[in-house]
C-alpha cells in the first residue's frame, strides 16, 4: 500500500522550471533513495512533497488524502522532514530539540509518555549521552542525528530526509541508514531519502529514483538503476559498477584511465 504517492509534480521558481512531471510512490516498509547531481531538484522535490513549496502542477497524496486539503498539523502527524542543514537554535538542549518533534501532538504541557518517546529515539540514534548538552555545542554530525531523532518522535508514517548523512563519518552513515531501514521494516514506515553517496543508497534503499535536470531519469531497484550508462548520462563520469556483493557498487575512474585501471 502506498503511504505517499506523487503524481506528475511540477514546480518553477519564478521563471526557472525545476521539476518536470515527477511521479513516484512509496509503500509502507519501503526506503526510496533520491539520487542525482547537485541542482537536479532533489531538495525542491522534497520541499514540494512536504508542502513547504506549492507545486504548480500535479498532486501529492498522503495516505490517499491530497496534502493541499490537510491542515498543517495533520500533515505534521503524517509526515516528518529532516532538513539538509541541521537547525541550531541557541540555548536548547538535545532533549528539548528532540522534544519539539512532539509538537504536533502537544497542547502546552509535556507528559511522561512524550519524555519517554524522546529518550527511546535518543537511544536509537546513540545520542543518550548527549541528551543534556546544548545543541549549539554539538558537531555537525551529532546535530544531524538529533534532527533524525526528532523526526522519529514525530511518529509519522512517512519520513523525508534531505541528505541526512552528508556530515557523518562512514560509521554513523551506516548507523543512520540501518536505523532507517530497520524502522521502515518494523513499523511499516515509508522513507524518502535524498543521498549523494550512490553506494550507500544502493546498499540501503529498496528502490532508487535518479533525477536529472528536474525529471526522473531512472526508477527501480538499485541493480537496475545503478549502471555505467546511467552514471555517464546523468553525472557525466566514467565509472565501473561492480556486482560481486549483495548490492551493486560503483568505483569512479579518472577520465582517460578507464582501460588501464579496469
Amino acid at each position, binding site marked *: 500500500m502506498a503511504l505517499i504517492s506523487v503524481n506528475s509534480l511540477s514546480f518553477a521558481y519564478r521563471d526557472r522550471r525545476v521539476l518536470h512531471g515527477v511521479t513516484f510512490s512509496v509503500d509502507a516498509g519501503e526506503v526510496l533513495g533520491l539520487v542525482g547531481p547537485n541542482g537536479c531538484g532533489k531538495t525542491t522535490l522534497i520541499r514540494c512533497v512536504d508542502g513547504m513549496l506549492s507545486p504548480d502542477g500535479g498532486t501529492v497524496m498522503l495516505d490517499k488524502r491530497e496534502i493541499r486539503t490537510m491542515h498543517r498539523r495533520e500533515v505534521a502527524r503524517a509526515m516528518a522532514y529532516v532538513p539538509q542543514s541541521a*537547525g541550531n537554535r541557541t*540555548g536548547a*538542549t538535545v532533549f528539548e530539540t528532540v522534544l519539539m518533534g512532539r509538537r504536533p501532538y502537544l497542547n502546552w504541557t509535556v507528559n511522561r509518555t512524550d519524555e519517554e518517546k524522546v*529518550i527511546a529515539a535518543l537511544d536509537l540514534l546513540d545520542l*543518550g*549521552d548527549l541528551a*543534556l548538552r546544548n545543541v549549539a555545542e554539538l558537531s555537525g554530525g551529532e546535530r544531524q542525528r538529533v534532527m533524525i531523532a526528532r523526526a522519529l518522535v514525530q511518529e509519522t508514517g512517512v519520513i523525508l530526509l534531505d541528505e541526512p548523512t552528508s556530515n557523518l563519518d562512514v560509521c554513523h552513515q551506516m548507523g543512520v541508514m540501518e536505523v532507517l531501514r530497520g524502522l521502515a521494516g518494523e513499523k511499516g514506515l515509508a522513507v524518502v531519502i535524498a543521498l549523494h553517496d550512490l553506494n550507500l543508497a544502493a546498499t540501503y534503499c529498496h528502490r532508487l529514483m535518479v533525477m536529472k535536470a528536474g525529471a526522473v531519469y531512472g526508477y527501480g531497484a538499485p541493480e537496475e538503476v545503478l549502471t555505467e550508462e546511467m552514471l555517464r548520462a546523468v553525472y557525466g563520469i566514467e565509472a565501473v559498477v561492480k556486482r560481486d556483493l549483495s548490492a551493486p557498487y560503483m568505483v569512479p575512474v579518472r577520465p582517460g584511465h578507464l582501460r588501464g585501471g579496469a
Partner: protein
Amino acid sequence: MEQHVVIEGYTRLKKTRALFIGGLLSALVILTGVAVTLGSAGLTVGESYLAILAGLFPGFFSAPDLATTIVWDFRLHRVLFAVSSGFGLAVAGCVMQGILRNPLASPFTLGIASAAATGASIAIVLGAGAVGGEYLVIGNAFLFSLLAALAIYGMARYRGIGSETMVLAGIALMYLFSAVTSLLQYVGSAEQLQAVVFWMFGSVDKSTWPKLGIVALVLACTIPYLVYRAWDLNALAEGDEMAASLGVPVERSMAVLMMIASLITAVIICFTGTIGFIGLVAPHITRMAIGGDFRTLLPASGLVGALLLLSADSIARSVLAPQILPVGIVTAFLGVPFFIYLFLHRRDA
C-alpha cells in the same frame, strides 16, 4: 546515559527554570517596595509597604495619610509603570528575536522605536497629529510605531515573508525614520529640539494611573496568549521550513505574533519614549540563564526586563536626587557592561 538520568536531568532543568522565575518574582516584589521608598519624603521600606497595603485593604491596614498620599499619588504608579514597561518591552523583544531568529531583533533595531520618535517629533515640532490635545504626542508615537510594524510586515510579505527580509526592512526603516526625526530637529526651534531630545531619551516620568491602566490592560490581554503560543515560537526558532514540518502555519503565526509584539511595543513607547535596550538584552540574559524554551523564556524575560527597568529607574531617581536622569540613559549604562560581561563569560562562547 541511563534513561532515568536523562529524565532527572530534564526535571532538574524544569526546576531550575521554576526557581529562576520564582526568584525573579520575589526580587521584583522586594525591589518594588524599595523603589517606592526612594525620594525626598524619607519613608522606610516598612512604611511604604504599609501604605501600599493600606491603599489596597483600607479596613485591615492603616498608614499615615501623608505616606499613603505620597505612595499612591506619586510613586506607586511610576514604579509599576516601570515594571510593566520593562516586562512588555522584554517580552516583545523576545518574541521578535524568536520569530526572526535574529539575536539583533528588537523593537529598536526593527525601526519601531525610531518610528515612534518620528511620530512624536512631528507632534512636537509641527503640532500635527491624528489626535489632538493632551494625547497628541502619545497618539502620534503610537500610530507611527504601528505603521512601521505594518510597513516591515508588508515589505516582507510582498517578497515572500522571510525572517532576513524583515530584519533588513526594519533596519532600513530605522535609518529612514531617524533621518526624518533629524530633519525635524533641524527645522525645529530650540525648545522643540529640546522636547524632541527629551522624548527620545525615554523615561517613565510622565506615568499616571490611567496610562498604567492602558499598558497593564494590553499586557493582560496579550501576554497569556503569547505564552500559550510558546510551542509555535519554539518551532519557528528552528527555521520556517522546520516549523512548517512540525505543524506550524508559518505565515499566519509569524504575522499574528509579530503584530502582537508590535502592539505591546507601541503602547509602551508612546508613553515612555525610546527605551531601546531592554527589549534587546533581557531576552538574551534570560536565555543564557535558563535556555531557549519559550514556555519559560517569555515570562522570565519579562521579569528580567521589569527588574532591569525598575532598577535603572530607581538609580535614575536617586543618583543625582532630586534631579531625575532619563531612564533610557541609565539602562544603557547599566545594561551594556553587564551584557558584555555575560557574553564574554558565556560557557559556549
